[in-house]
């Protein structure tokens, strides 16, 4: 009985706080995306033509985001029936946009306005109880073009 109660409490806490945190995170991401709008990202390697050669530098951004208890249980249920695991979709979406933002911020600090050959890596890092992975890491990296005059 005690485990059932603690399970339900965790589930409700996970849902309430998880949803709240996710909404807040998305708002925060959107806000910063507007601020960093002038840093452009492309995953092509061909650089635009230039008169004076710009400096290049590797810029990176990474983030590890964990899933809440409710979504973890929901994903466990998805695993039984198959199909889309919607709870993880929003998780990786958040992580990816956050990582790109951090890369952009990195580029901005160097006075760059364009990043080329952007690549994204995803890794699940923490294997917790019963091989359930609770967190994903997204790593974004690219080459920033810095005007040197």
């Amino acid at each position, binding site marked *: 009985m005690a485990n059932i109660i603690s399970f339900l409490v965790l589930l409700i806490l996970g849902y309430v706080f998880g949803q709240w945190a996710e909404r807040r995170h998305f708002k925060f991401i959107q806000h910063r995306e507007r601020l960093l709008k002038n840093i*452009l*990202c*492309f*995953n*092509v*390697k*061909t650089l635009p033509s230039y008169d004076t050669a710009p400096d290049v530098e590797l810029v990176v951004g990474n983030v590890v985001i964990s899933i809440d208890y409710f979504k973890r249980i929901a*994903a466990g249920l*998805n*695993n*039984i*029936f*198959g*199909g*889309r*695991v*919607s709870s*993880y*979709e929003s998780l*990786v*979406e958040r992580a*990816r946009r956050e990582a*790109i933002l951090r890369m952009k911020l990195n580029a901005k600090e160097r006075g760059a306005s364009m990043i080329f050959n*952007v*690549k*994204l*890596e*995803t*890794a*699940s890092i923490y294997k917790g109880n*019963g*091989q*359930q*992975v609770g967190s*994903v890491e997204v790593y974004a990296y690219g080459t920033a073009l810095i005007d040197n005059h």
Partner: protein
Amino acid sequence: MIITNIEALPGKTIVKHLGMVQGNTVRAKHIGRDLMAGFKNIFGGELKGYTELLQEAREESVARMIEQAQAIGANAVINVRFSTSSITAGAAELFAYGTAVVIE
């Protein structure tokens, strides 16, 4: 919508780069498929169920990427990359990304 994983399109000129577009989906296989895969792991051979599942999911991630590209007015996505990661036991994330462009 032209999808390619090279950076230039023969006979076409890229007039605008519109930035990166992404498509992702996380899919799990159902428990029946897990059991069948367990048997297959003994004898070896192709796991048809998983092949189909991953392919289907990858198509969806490309479809989502194209949806993004269309939403921002592109008519081609170049330099498309795929990445697959196992997010949790029994579920895989299929991710596709590329640069949305306007070609003429």
